Structures are given as structure tokens and as C-alpha cells.
């Protein structure tokens, strides 16, 4: 039991002790997660909303594909991304393998379907006639879509929270695509796996604590914004 207590104590000392390497890992974790969530929101919210609102052939199949994407195994995403980004792969020329950019790409592939699927579901809960009413009031398609999004902003924020949660805690894809290279692509999750494998449980617990705290703080912030909006409505 002592090693758990030791781990907690070491964790606190790492958090407050100003360890430069730990801070670099935290910074990279935040950068990769926030940037990939932002990109996923930029792609997933319009995609989900448009699929929900527009009528087109094979719509049900497209919705099934999006929903399937919500449960994509991160390890498989990582593997596919690595194969595509590897030197002989179709995207090898980009040179993104074992870089934070490659990690962002993998996480965007994981988070976009989650955000798109939840946005789609939220938009479908809004009566389609609401969108049509906006069109008949003179809105262009994007104006109408924007007004609809504002109507379901609480659900969209929930989608953002879910998307962020799926990437900040993800390990398989970033491990494969990033390679867990020290000072380059090591993030909190990959560092925890590595320390655990090496038997450095105190370090693993410390990093785990940091990850939990970060996730908690960011979710508190997003939930606060969401609930503030809910109260004003």
C-alpha cells in the first residue's frame, strides 16, 4: 500500500515542484487534445448538423456510418494513421509520423465522429420545421444552420465535452502515431503507460493525478459555461 501513498506524494511534488519535463508533457497533452478537439468541432458540428437537416439519398446509411465512427477503436485508428503516414504510405510525404501533427490527425479521426454523431442527434431533436421556418424568414442556408445551432447550444457543448474527453484520455492512437518520443511526442497517457511498464508506479500515479486534474478542470469549465447558458434560458 505504501507505493500508492508514495505515488500520491511524488505526484504532488511533481505538480508543484516545477519539473520541466512534466510541464512539457502537460503542455503537449493540452496542445494535442485542445487542437484536435477544436478541429473536430470545426468539422464534426457542421457535418452532423447538415446530415441531420438535409434530405438526401442514403441518409440513413450516412447516419449509420457516423454512429459507427463514434465507436472507432483508437488502436485501429492509430494503426491506420501510422500506415498512411509511414514513409511508404500515401501520406508519407507529409512527414507527420512521430510528430504532434500526426497525433492531432489521429485524434481528429477519433473525436470527429463523436462530435458529429452527438451534433447530429442534437439537431434531429430540433423540429426540422424550425430550420425551414428560418429559411422562409429569409435566412440563407448557413444563417439558418447557425440559428439552429444556437438553439441546441447546450447539446453542442455536451458534444464538445464528450469529444475532448475521448482525446485527452486516449492512449492507443497517440502511442502508435506519436511513438512516445521523449521531449517530442510524449503526452500524459503515453507517459503513464511507459512508467507503469517500467515499474515506476509513483511516476505513473503522479502523471495520472495530473491527467485527472486537467480533465476535471477543463470539464468543470465547460460544464460551468453550459449550465450558465441553461440558467439564462
Amino acid at each position, binding site marked *: 500500500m505504501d507505493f500508492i501513498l508514495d505515488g500520491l506524494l511524488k505526484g504532488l511534488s511533481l505538480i508543484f515542484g516545477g519539473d520541466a519535463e512534466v510541464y512539457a508533457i502537460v503542455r503537449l497533452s493540452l496542445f494535442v487534445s485542445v487542437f484536435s478537439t477544436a478541429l473536430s468541432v470545426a468539422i464534426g458540428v457542421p457535418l452532423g448538423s447538415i446530415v441531420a437537416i438535409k434530405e438526401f439519398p442514403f441518409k440513413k446509411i450516412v447516419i449509420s456510418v457516423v454512429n459507427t465512427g463514434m465507436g472507432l477503436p483508437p488502436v485501429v485508428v492509430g494503426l491506420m494513421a501510422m500506415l498512411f503516414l509511414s514513409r511508404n504510405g500515401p501520406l508519407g510525404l507529409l512527414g507527420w509520423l512521430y510528430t504532434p501533427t500526426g497525433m492531432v490527425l489521429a485524434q481528429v479521426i477519433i473525436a470527429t465522429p463523436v462530435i458529429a454523431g452527438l451534433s447530429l442527434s442534437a439537431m434531429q431533436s430540433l*423540429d426540422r*420545421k*424550425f430550420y*425551414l*421556418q*428560418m*429559411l*422562409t*424568414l*429569409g*435566412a*440563407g*442556408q448557413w*444563417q439558418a444552420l447557425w*440559428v439552429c445551432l*444556437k*438553439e441546441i447550444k447546450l447539446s453542442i457543448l455536451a458534444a464538445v465535452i464528450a469529444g475532448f474527453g475521448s482525446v485527452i484520455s486516449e492512449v492507443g492512437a497517440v502511442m502508435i502515431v506519436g511513438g512516445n518520443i521523449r521531449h517530442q511526442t510524449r503526452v500524459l497517457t503515453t507517459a503513464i503507460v511507459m512508467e507503469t511498464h517500467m515499474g515506476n508506479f509513483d511516476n505513473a500515479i503522479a502523471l495520472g493525478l495530473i491527467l485527472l486534474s486537467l480533465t476535471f478542470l477543463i470539464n468543470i469549465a465547460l460544464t460551468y459555461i453550459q449550465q450558465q447558458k441553461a440558467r439564462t*434560458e
Partner: protein
Amino acid sequence: MIKLKDLDFRLSTGFALNIDSLSIGVGEVFAIIGPNGAGKTTLLNILALLQDAKPANFEIGGRSALDRSGSTALRRSMSYLFSRPYLINDTVYNNIALPLMFRGEKDSGQVAEMLEVFKIAYLRDRSANQLSQGERHRVSLSRAFVTRPRLVLLDEPFSSLDARVKEAIISDLRRITRAARTTVVLVTQDQEEALALADVLAVIKEGRLLQTGRPETIFSRPASKEVADFVGVETMLGGEVTAASDNLCSVRVGDNTLAVVSACEAGDSVLLCVRPEAVAVSRSAEANSMRNHFKGTITSVEPWRLEYRLSIDCGFNLIAAVTKRSLDDMGLKPGDGIFASFKATAAHLIKR
């Protein structure tokens, strides 16, 4: 204002809307009535460019509506009110100003004007979520008129309102549309609402326009049994024209002969239609100008709208409408003998 020709539109459900020709004039209040599932809302959606229909010709305000790239611009010349008012989660002011925002225009007093016109100035800063159903409808109407549209499409806009609120809103709507010469296309199942507002009435059933014309013509001179059924003609009797001269036809119905003013000719097989309110009843045989008199027996008395509906067996079944007061004064009840009469001009013949 609207010209539509050779529309053949099919929904994914298999429902088909076939309209040979539809023309709605500027400043006209055009009401479309018909039973549920007749295609009224589908037609309105096509007029609002919300359905991808491909008629042979389609013009709104003199501009072709066939080219979908100009849909937004054309929609900005009209407003469409759904049966449920879809308001955004914001203040009443921002709801009414929404169409101006979509057009990139500033509010130069139009919102305040609409708040006054629809008598909701006191709601200006209230959240749309805090409004009653009647208030939501008024906000929705204000929003529809804030851009002074030349065409307003109304899809059963008052169906969820109580009679008092509905009457007040219809009165405001009539005043505003008449003043601005706004063209209005109204879809409704409520015939009284259609009569209160419409200059021209169209009856639609199973995706086909059955009859278009002035409301009084459609109600008194339905073109087919289906229209007669829908507009409340209760007595429809199959018969044959035995003689016709000077537009006065003698129609044999069973053992009875009835007189009807009509352009039918002798030998025509017809359906004789009489509206309940055209039939007068009395306890005694009175001499009057009506050409059709029958002695009969009341078979049933039922409440009907704000009046009572009598079924009278005169050798054929004749339906009459009487007020509550007449019913009480004459003490009418099933089994009573009674005299029924109606004018030759009050009946209408449909050729079969």
C-alpha cells in the same frame, strides 16, 4: 403574384400532387381548404420553395421560381407562417428583428411598428419562452410582416388558438393585409376561417385541385360531390331532370318532383344539393314564394355547429338547420310532422 402550371410532384411517401394550373392575383387572399392529407401543406411548401418541385411554369411576383439558385432572394419577398410559431430562444424584439438580420438590414423602426400593429409592445423585452400561445402567434405574425412581404403563406396559423384570440388575430391580419395589398395564401381546415378571410377559395383533395372560385360560389354551387361533401352540403339526392325551360329544371327524386334553377337539360342524370341553412321549416303549410314544399316527419334532432340539425323524412331525406330559439319556439322533436321548403335558387344540380 403566383403562377403555377403543370405541377406533378411526388413525395417519398408516394403521395402525389397534381395541379394543372394555379393563378393567384396580387393582393388576393387565396384560401386552400381540404381534408387532412389532401396536399394543402405540400402545395404551400412548394410555393415557399421548400420542396424541389419541377412544374412546367412557376412564377412568383413575375420572377421565375424554377431556378433554385435564386431561392433565397425569392423567399425574401415572402413570409411563411407555420401552424406552430417557431420562435428563437431570445427576446420578443430579437425574434421580430430576425428577418431584418438575415437580410443584413438595420431596424429603422419596423420592429416597433409591428409591436404596435399586433398590440404586443408590452412584450418587447420579454423572453419568447415566457409567452402564452396567443402571444407567440402574435410575435410570429409580427415577425412575418416586419419586412413588409408582398406574399404571405399561412399554414393553419390559428388552429391551436381559442375562438376569442383567433377572432382578434384574424381581424388584425385582415386589416393589415388589406391595407398593404399583401397577397395571402392560407391553408386551413376551418371553413369559417376561410370564409372570414378569403377572396378566392380552392378545394383540394388527394393531391388534386377540385374547384377554385369565390367562396360563396363554392359553398352554394359545388362542382362535384366531393366538394359538396367537404363544404357542408348535407342533402345530396340522386335524380333525373324531367323538364327544363328558362333555366328552371324539374328534377324527379323518387316519387317527388323538385324545382331547381340550373342550366341542366331534360334527361340529365344529376345530384341535387341543398345546404341545411337553405331549408326552412314550419308547423303549417304556408303559402310563400318557395317552389319546393314537402310534408315530412322529423327523424332526428342533433346539435350542429351553433345550431341544430333536423333530419326530415319527406320521401327522401332532407336536412335542415334551425337555431336553438326556433327549435324551442316550435317545440320540434323526433316523430313530429313538419313542413319543409326551399327555393329553387337555393338548390344546385351537379351532373353525374
